[in-house]
């Protein structure tokens, strides 16, 4: 009797095991091919070059040649210095201006102040509408409507004017970035126990004190997550340049993410090893910086006492 029940139990475990294996088989295979395989190939490629032998492309080991070329492009290249500078600016603006304003708007919505629902729709809209549609609307506004309103622009749009082109793109990046941030921040704010806020009010805390001492510490983990994600995405931020210009953005407004994407798309197989070297170098920078950044943010953030 006992033996039978053990057998039945083992059979059931076996069935469960097969079932679980079936469930994870497809994603596991997909992970092996499209993550492990692809990344292994990329790492290998960074140390290779493509040569032509008997009218066929052949990959040959090239040591650190690609990394040397990368270093040379950094010093003497055309687009890369601009891309690095712009990526920095985009990061600073996203973190400094974007996050601050997103917190402000989230608080506004959380407090249910005048027109907060309208603001919520306006700020969420870019996240709900297709990116291309949003880009086209924005482009139409800054290129056609703006010059029509302001005669001083001499008919020139903000994107076609080299002095205003980059700030206009930055503004767009910050604006479309609000949706997700506000959703998360206001969600985090809504999860705060109202009794804590009420208690603070009874203790005489004004709105600023309430925000700094109650709300901010309670939603700080969410803010940290966003800052860490931004740090990790430093080298992949395209600033929506592809949606605006496809492959044809002005190199002076390029970012590292855009430059790599464009070169992969346009350059052809001969460029792949160099681009793989770029990816490895940027990962070697981004990974430790992101982890250190996270530790730092966790350490320095406001604490709830």
């Amino acid at each position, binding site marked *: 009797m006992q033996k039978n029940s053990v057998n039945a139990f083992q059979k059931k475990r076996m069935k469960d095991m097969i079932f679980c294996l079936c469930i994870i088989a*497809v994603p596991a295979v997909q992970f092996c091919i499209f993550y492990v395989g692809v990344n292994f190939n990329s790492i290998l490629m960074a140390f290779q070059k493509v040569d*032509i032998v008997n009218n066929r*492309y052949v990959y040959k080991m090239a040591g650190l040649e690609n990394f040397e070329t990368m270093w040379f492009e950094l010093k003497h290249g055309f687009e890369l210095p601009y891309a690095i500078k712009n990526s920095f600016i985009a990061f600073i603006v996203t973190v400094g201006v974007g996050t601050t304003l997103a917190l402000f708007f989230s608080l506004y919505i959380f407090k249910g102040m005048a027109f907060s629902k309208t603001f919520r729709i306006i700020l969420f809209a870019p996240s709900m509408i297709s990116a291309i549609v949003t880009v*086209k609307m924005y482009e139409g506004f800054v290129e056609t409507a703006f010059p029509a309103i302001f005669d001083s622009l001499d008919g020139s*749009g903000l994107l076609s*004017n*080299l002095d205003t082109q980059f700030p206009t793109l930055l503004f767009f990046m910050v604006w479309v970035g609000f949706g997700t941030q506000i959703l998360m921040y206001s969600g985090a704010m809504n999860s705060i126990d109202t009794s804590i806020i009420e208690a603070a009010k009874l203790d005489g805390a004004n709105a600023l004190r309430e925000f700094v001492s109650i709300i901010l510490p309670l939603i700080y983990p969410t803010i940290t997550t966003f800052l860490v994600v931004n740090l990790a995405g430093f080298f992949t931020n395209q600033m929506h340049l592809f949606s605006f*210009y496809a492959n044809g953005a002005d*190199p002076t407004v390029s970012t590292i993410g855009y430059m790599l994407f464009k070169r992969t798309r346009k350059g*052809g197989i001969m460029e792949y090893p160099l681009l793989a070297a770029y990816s490895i170098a940027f990962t070697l920078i981004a990974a430790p910086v992101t982890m250190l950044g996270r530790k730092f943010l966790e350490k320095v953030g406001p604490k709830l006492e």
Partner: protein
Amino acid sequence: MKKSIKKLISLLCVGVLSAGAVACGSGDPAEPGPGPDNSSPGASVPAEDVDTSKAQLYISNFNGGVGTDWLYAARARFEEKYKNTEFVEGTRGVQIWVETHKNAGTAVADKMPMERNEIYFLENTNYYDMAYTGKLLDITDIVTEDLTDFGESKSIEDKLADSYKNYFRTPDQKYFALPHYRSIYQMTYDKDVFDEYLLYFDQAGGLTKTSTDSGRSTGPDGKAGTYDDGLPATYADMWTLCETMVARGVDPFVWSGQHGFYMTLFLAALKADFEGAEGTLNYTFDGTATKLVDTISNGKVTYKAPMTITQENGYEMYNSAGTYYALSFADKIVSNKWYANVSFNTSQSHIDAQNSFLVSKYSTKANPVGMLVEGCWWPHESAGNFQTLESNFGPSASLKNRRLAIMPYPKATADLVGTPLTAVDTSMSVACINANISEEKKELAKTFLQFVHTDESLVEFLKITNMTRGFEYEVSDEVYNSLCSYAQSVVDVIKNSNVLQPGCAKDVYVKNYASLNLEKPFETGHGAHPHVAFKNGKTLNQVWSAARAKYTKATWDKLIKV
């Protein structure tokens, strides 16, 4: 009950996940399947069912400016011609499926080994990436054999100009693709506007003539009685024309503000025309350059002594006077505001620019526009604009009846008047066969590819698209007279041009494809495009200095793979 629901949900999840695996298989290219959509917008043939009694042929076509109508026409003739032929055992006749898309050739190439399509007509390709990675079928046999089965005595190779042969024929004398359509950036002018405002030159240099008047100037070819009589022969003439246009209430130019590269590629075309055959040095690095800038004083260029160009000093070609003159052309137009306002509006697409040009003639509010900077495929692309105009202004507004024409490039300097026109084919378009094609269908695919390269098919292509393909073939007077004004001018210009395919089979070109494209000499760091730089107050000297300093000996040695 709960368990059953759990099991059901789990099974559904497995089913959904497994469905993704279906796409992983390469599939059998010979399997008919439901067939790709062949009823794309503009298609003249409705969707149909698979006829398994016929051999199936799958074609992928880039449905951009050239469209797909030409392919539908060729398909109909081919299916009729071979309706009783057994290409594949057990079948009689052919059923052709056309898949249309707007993907760049480079993106399509990545998927080719997994696709069912057997023949491709693509643009923006990297031919050698495709050929040297085994994605393309060797078609040397059908390119080099005479087309006697089609009643012709020449081979396809015989119809290819040297420039195309040098690009498509690999060093071991093989062909893996053929050129598709010629895409040349140019100026289209409106003959009606030119007639109304007397914008044709007389022999004394005044603008007093119409297109039908005698006594017009000889134009860039320097010969009287030819297609370009009365048109500006030099850049100086062009400036006179633009000044006069503005004085008479005509906006000289319009172009797409959104696609700034259209204007840059037009400048590349002016550069190529100036450099002539010497322009091949930009990618062969094998020959003598005679038009490299030594000094420039008050716009007058002094050339360096003739210089042998090799792979080691290829950077010298960035000092070409052709680049300087092309930049000066853009600078002059922009700094004098010889353009319609919308030309710098980045929300103004190419279709919008075409419409601005076409509709301006009828506008009572805006000035008429004299010239449109565009790729030569644009009228076919602008079919919607023409339809709207025709419904608003009657049959005279149709493409067939509008008196539009390509303006041959004026020469940079007077001493070049009378030299042959050089045009540059920009789109890297190809016609090719997928290497994954099954053995039993190779003959069918190769026969179709030959079929679309017969003179009859090439002429049909011209009649439908108003464009030429990269081959030399006769256009009879009867056909010529049946063409619209624009297409006639395409034939005139091509007949009097050397068309360059800007690339070659040499390893240095193949390895540096990305660095040697036509736009590179115009990347200066002053905005994405030279005309944008000039619009933003940059001077010709600033832009030219940046252009010529693009590479030094040190950067060339490091960045160019040899």
